[in-house]
């Protein structure tokens, strides 16, 4: 446990300069947006006179140099102030915190489902490398992995929402349904089925392939032969030893995929009209709302860092060799 905490501390310290780089880089990129926040705001409210524009620019700090503004941004950030959304005219942090839970639910369920079913199918495929089951699952997962998730979302909604009417077409809950408590949770879950399925398929394929490849790798290791020679039952060798060892790369992959999943939520939330964090990014782009986009990118980077810290911890708990060489 001590090992894991030490690792956690070291990783969090090294991620600070990286985060600073992200802030600076994103700030400079969005700085170059044609038309600034004042323009966007003017468009939003329908124009204004020159004096008003100057005031507005001063208010946003747009009359100062880039570096001064970056400094302002960072010092505001230190007080958890992400600035004001131009398009929505609300504090960015509020908007993000409001939109984030839906997306976390969406991604959390997709990851949980795909991890469980992907690794189980991977065990099935990896239990007998080269068997018919193995080859079928392997080709099938590759095909599934080639499907764009947003397109899969559309196809699923055509079939299950438009044709069969099993699930709602879009949104996160039935508007003005007046449902509360469990009924409301059920309603939201129903709305999440198709988007979760479209996201989960991709990751299911990924985890299946990783698990299968990992198991094939572990099969070749000598300790498997040693376990056979000790009389350990075949199914126990597969589940307790091979699958367990093969699970480790999957945990790492969870961290590596965190960024990709957040990116993927943009299109999926667009397809299913879910008012989440990903949709917020698309709204920031279409509303030319640079501060909001900046806030979204920053928040997702922090999320990615947090997910990776969690993944490192879990990995350290599962693999006793990690961080073992550190001075105690």
């Amino acid at each position, binding site marked *: 446990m001590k090992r894991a905490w030490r690792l956690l501390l070291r990783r969090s310290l090294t991620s600070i300069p990286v985060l600073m780089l992200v802030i600076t880089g994103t700030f400079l990129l969005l700085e170059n947006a044609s038309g600034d926040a004042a323009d966007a705001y003017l468009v939003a409210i329908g124009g204004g006179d020159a004096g008003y524009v100057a005031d507005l620019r001063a208010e946003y700090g747009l009359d100062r140099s880039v570096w001064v503004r970056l400094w302002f941004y960072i010092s505001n950030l230190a007080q958890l102030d992400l600035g004001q959304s131009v398009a929505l005219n609300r504090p960015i942090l509020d908007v993000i915190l409001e939109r984030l839970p839906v997306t976390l639910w969406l991604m959390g369920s997709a990851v949980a489902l795909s991890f469980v079913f992907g690794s189980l199918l991977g065990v099935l495929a990896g239990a007998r490398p080269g068997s018919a089951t193995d080859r079928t699952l392997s080709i099938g997962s590759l095909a599934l992995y080639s499907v764009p998730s947003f397109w899969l979302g559309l196809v699923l909604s055509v079939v299950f929402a438009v044709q069969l009417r099993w699930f709602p077409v879009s949104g996160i809950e039935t508007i003005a349904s007046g449902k509360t408590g469990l009924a409301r949770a059920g309603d939201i879950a129903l709305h999440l089925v198709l988007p979760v399925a479209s996201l989960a398929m991709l990751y299911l394929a990924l985890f299946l392939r990783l698990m299968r490849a990992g198991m094939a790798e572990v099969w070749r290791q000598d300790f498997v032969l040693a376990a*056979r020679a000790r*009389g350990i039952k075949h199914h126990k060798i597969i589940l307790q030893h091979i699958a367990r060892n093969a699970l480790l790369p999957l945990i790492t992959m969870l961290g590596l995929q965190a960024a990709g999943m957040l990116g993927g939520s943009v299109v999926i939330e667009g397809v299913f009209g879910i008012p989440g964090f990903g949709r917020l990014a698309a709204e920031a782009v279409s509303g030319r709302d640079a501060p909001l986009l900046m806030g979204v990118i920053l928040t997702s980077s922090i999320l990615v860092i947090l997910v990776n810290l969690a993944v490192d911890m879990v990995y350290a708990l599962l693999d006793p060799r990690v961080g073992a060489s550190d001075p105690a």
Partner: protein
Amino acid sequence: MSALVSLEGLSVRYPRSTTPALEAVTMSVAQGEKLAIIGESGSGKSTLARALVDLLPRGSRCDGTITWQGGSPAPGRDYGYVFQDPGSSFDPILSIGAQMVEVLQTHFPLTRHDARVRAAALLARVQIPAPELALDAYPHQFSGGQKQRIAIAIAIATGPKLLIADEPTSALDTVVQAEIVALLQELVESDAMTLLFITHDIALASGLADRIAVFRNARLVEIGTANEIITAPRRSYTRGLVAAHLDLTTPVLIGDVP
């Protein structure tokens, strides 16, 4: 002396391999003897051991007959197997205790607690210091020699009648080698086990074994008592082996290992 197992015309071919790894081997292992298998690397020694106890990779072809006294042995119960590389004979992410308990519970109806007590006793028997603590440690926390001791403890956990040790000391340094050999010898004698000891070191073989079988290029060259093989080898290959060793170390071979 009755034969524990006898082989007749045993040939083995690994999957996707064009040449046999073992060809027409006929020999037997006597009940209670210490038999050394010697031969250079690739001569088929490990293949022989794996074929005997049915541990060849899936898809290998095995011709000839293997006759066990009392039917084919159950892995882990009727024989214990010690591998060359102690580093890779453990699951790297499970504690030593968990792996020992798993083996013990596979073969005996024991509670987890009782299995742990028995595991600690086994570790004490192979002279691992602080056995209780060692149970909670992981394989990478032990030295090569200690790992091999633990592997031996697991191999003898069920009190098997046969112990197979496939070059158990080749991956270790000389001092540790001697300790491990002494430990094996002591255990085999006190538990009256049959020992199949594989090595490429003729001196080690002659010091430890009652009989020696010499292998070369997948074939059995000759088999005889340790004394016969060392003092009166019948085949020129064996004579060469013995002579090469005599050139290097002058003292007598028999009895020069503790």
